């Protein structure tokens, strides 16, 4: 709808609600969402060619090389551009076919054979072959390349490519999570010649996925256009997707209200007001994020197990969920979400102030102690959660001083160097429990992702056993025990399993955001 038309409507004093009802009653297409930026309606953009969808990416991608970039803002873009050998089925959480049409695993769990799909091309038109798979995995293993998935291949002995459509991975010892690891972005298959053209690659890399990067302007947008050579027949439906960079949550909400964008993540505090907005739906989706309180188990007094146990029963997570998460999410003791086959129902965690006081006394800290909690105020829920924990634990004579730091400082000091006593953040769980637990709980990972410096021989043994086992039942049992230790002894205190709210204009169909923050645009349509 053009501006003059809209003004005319305004002058006859029809409010938006009446207008919408009128349009509905007459069966007309909803023409209400006036796009003030372009003077056009976002509904008009659903043209015959599939139209353009505009999505708020939040922040700039921190890079677009799938082997390297590890921030969610990068994943949202890269997931549209790159394919992996396998792809997770959202229904079953099992690895399904993607670039590999089928696979076989030898009985001893050491040899994996993948049969590649024929006729797949990169968006530059060149056919994807087994050599590309070999080259991509070798690139990940190259010590010169800062690839984040090196650990998946540390026990890899050799890669064979007997023909253009067969890849054989030979491992020296079983690596149970491999198939799920090969579903992850960081194991994407890339075209060597494009990667080696460094200047172009760093700005607009190419892959074999449903979309191609058309432009990438920092602080403005990353524009994706349909890959006409994409191997899945008839997909994607959308002709273009524009990922805008709107960092301010309030501005993003204003943009979706006015219809300037089709989709954005919505902060928990804005869900209610946005849900009342005509033309906007708010979807609450399970995410893989598990916000947690953490303590450094290598420093006093948190090296004392009883102190950790006292803290666990010393605060009430319901209050945090109401005040910091506005009632969204699900209280859980373990980090694995419902629906994950490995999730164990671990009991024995409830708010119990008397028991907490007793445990503090047993640990020799009846008079309490003083510690600093380092939090990142830019994460919406952290300040409120920190204050509630501070208030609860003061009952145990634990005096917490809250120190606010900025996220890069948090990464470098708290996450990388474990320079903290208490802190909080949200980690993301993966479908395979090995990928969710080993990094953060194994003593072999001290100085890496095990930032709470948790070290427990029994836990190490269970995690090693789980990684090396190919028997699903045995693994199930192993990880159930590991989750019990996680809840009882570790330095992580799961606050809840977070839900993410997405605000979507009502003409967006089949929005697919999988719990592990994988955004799939290929089946999304605009009506």
């Amino acid at each position: 709808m053009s501006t003059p038309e809209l003004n005319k409507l305004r002058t006859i004093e029809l409010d938006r609600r009446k207008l919408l009802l009128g349009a509905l009653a007459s069966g007309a297409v909803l023409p209400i969402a006036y796009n003030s930026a372009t003077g056009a309606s976002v509904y008009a953009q659903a043209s015959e060619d599939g139209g353009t969808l505009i999505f708020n990416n939040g922040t700039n991608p921190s890079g677009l090389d799938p082997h390297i970039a590890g921030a969610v803002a990068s994943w949202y873009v890269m997931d549209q551009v790159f394919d992996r050998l396998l792809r997770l089925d959202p229904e079953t959480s099992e690895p399904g076919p993607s670039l590999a049409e089928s696979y076989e695993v030898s009985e001893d769990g050491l040899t994996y054979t993948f049969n590649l799909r024929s006729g797949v091309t990169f968006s530059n038109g060149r056919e994807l072959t087994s050599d590309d798979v070999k080259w991509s995995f070798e690139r990940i293993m190259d010590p010169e390349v800062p690839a984040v998935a090196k650990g998946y291949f540390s026990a890899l002995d050799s890669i064979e490519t007997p023909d253009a459509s067969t890849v054989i991975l030979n491992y020296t010892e079983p690596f149970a999570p491999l198939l799920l690891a090969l579903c992850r972005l960081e194991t994407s298959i890339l075209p060597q010649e494009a990667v080696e053209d460094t200047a172009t690659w760093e700005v607009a890399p190419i892959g074999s996925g449903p979309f191609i990067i058309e432009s990438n302007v920092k602080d403005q947008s990353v524009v994706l256009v349909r890959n006409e050579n994409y191997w899945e027949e008839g997909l994607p439906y959308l002709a273009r997707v524009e990922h805008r960079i709107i960092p301010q949550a309030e501005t993003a909400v204003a943009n979706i209200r006015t219809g300037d964008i089709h989709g954005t993540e919505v902060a928990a505090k804005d869900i209610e007001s946005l849900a009342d907005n005509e033309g906007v739906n708010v979807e609450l989706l399970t995410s893989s994020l598990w916000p947690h309180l953490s303590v450094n188990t290598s420093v006093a007094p948190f090296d004392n197990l009883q102190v950790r146990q006292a803290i666990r029963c010393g605060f009430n997570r319901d209050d945090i969920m109401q005040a910091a998460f506005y009632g969204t999410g699900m209280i859980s003791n373990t980090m694995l979400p419902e629906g994950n086959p490995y999730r164990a129902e671990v009991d024995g965690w409830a708010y119990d102030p008397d028991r907490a006081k007793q445990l503090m006394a047993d640990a020799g800290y009846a008079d309490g102690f003083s510690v600093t909690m380092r939090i990142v105020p830019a994460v919406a829920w952290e300040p409120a959660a920190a204050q509630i924990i501070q208030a609860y634990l003061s009952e145990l004579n634990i005096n917490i001083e809250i120190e606010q730091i900025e996220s890069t400082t948090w990464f470098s000091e708290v996450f990388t160097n474990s320079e903290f006593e208490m802190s909080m953040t949200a980690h993301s769980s993966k479908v395979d429990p090995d990928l969710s637990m080993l990094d953060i709980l194994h003593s072999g990972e001290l100085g890496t992702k095990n930032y709470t410096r948790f070290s427990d021989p029994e836990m190490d043994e269970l995690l090693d056993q789980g990684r090396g086992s190919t028997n699903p039942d045995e693994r199930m049992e192993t990880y159930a025990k590991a989750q019990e230790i996680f809840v009882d002894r570790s330095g992580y205190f799961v606050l809840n399993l977070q839900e993410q709210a997405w605000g979507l204009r009502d003409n967006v169909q089949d929005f697919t955001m999988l719990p592990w923050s994988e955004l799939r645009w290929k089946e999304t349509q605009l009506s």
Partner: protein
Amino acid sequence: MLAYLIRRLIFALVVIVGVATISFALLHLIPGSPVDAILGTESTPEARVALEHQLGLDRPVLVQYVSWWGNVLRGDLGSSVMTKQPVGKLISERLPVTLPLALFSMLIALLIAVPAGIVSALRRNTWIDGLVSVIAFAGLSIPGFWLGTLLILGFSVHWQIFPPGGYVSILDDPISGLRHLVLPAIALGTTFAAVLTRMIRSSMLEVLGADYIRTARAKGQTEQRVVVGHALRNALIPAVTIIGVQVGILLSGALIIEQIFSLPGIGRLTVQAVLDRDIPLLQGCIIVIALIFVIVNLVTDLIYVYLDPRISYQ
């Protein structure tokens, strides 16, 4: 005059080298590295080491500093650690966003402040003067980010007159480009307008009490001629000083306003460079901002000569 200019340019150079050095040192003193921003929570020690090497961050700080200056002197500001694009290109893409915003804000501020200041001085101690003072005081007290959010809620969400942020180049589409600039320019220009109104009011009052104004009136000149021809030009001298200083404040205000209105200007580039610890990019931004500041102040000093014939730089 020429000697003065040369002297000022040398000072400007010293200022820029100083600013660049201090910012370089500060960025190395605060914790955090671009490696953290790139690899995220998936980072591993091996990946960190490889990336630090790739970005040249494993070299001693002094070596990094000297090599950076070496490149700058050859006209190369380096490449952004995050986007890998040349810093010079990134900045030159951003100036066409921030400069119109700053100019537009200044224009809005002048359009409000000059008449308001004059009227307020001429009608001293009347209700109009009181009203102007109250509004100016409010303008000074309201933070730009809050006003920006209110403007979006009112003019974008509720009345849908202006877009709620985003950027369209004035060259590509002048009307849409201007519409995108209106709200951020008001948010940015309000404080400036308030400062300028008070400044013009007080300097007008001072000038209106001067002997030559009385003489002009005694000669029987019209009030309009007295105010515009005699008083205003002299009253503008302190205002010009303020304009020079305020350009710096406008640029720093742009850091926040560009963030709120999603404008891809130099302010947002600078903020992002700090958050990402993108040292080459931040250094480039700071040099350009310092350069603008120095040039504007130099131009301000030269305008004095035109406004006040008693001033000369011999």
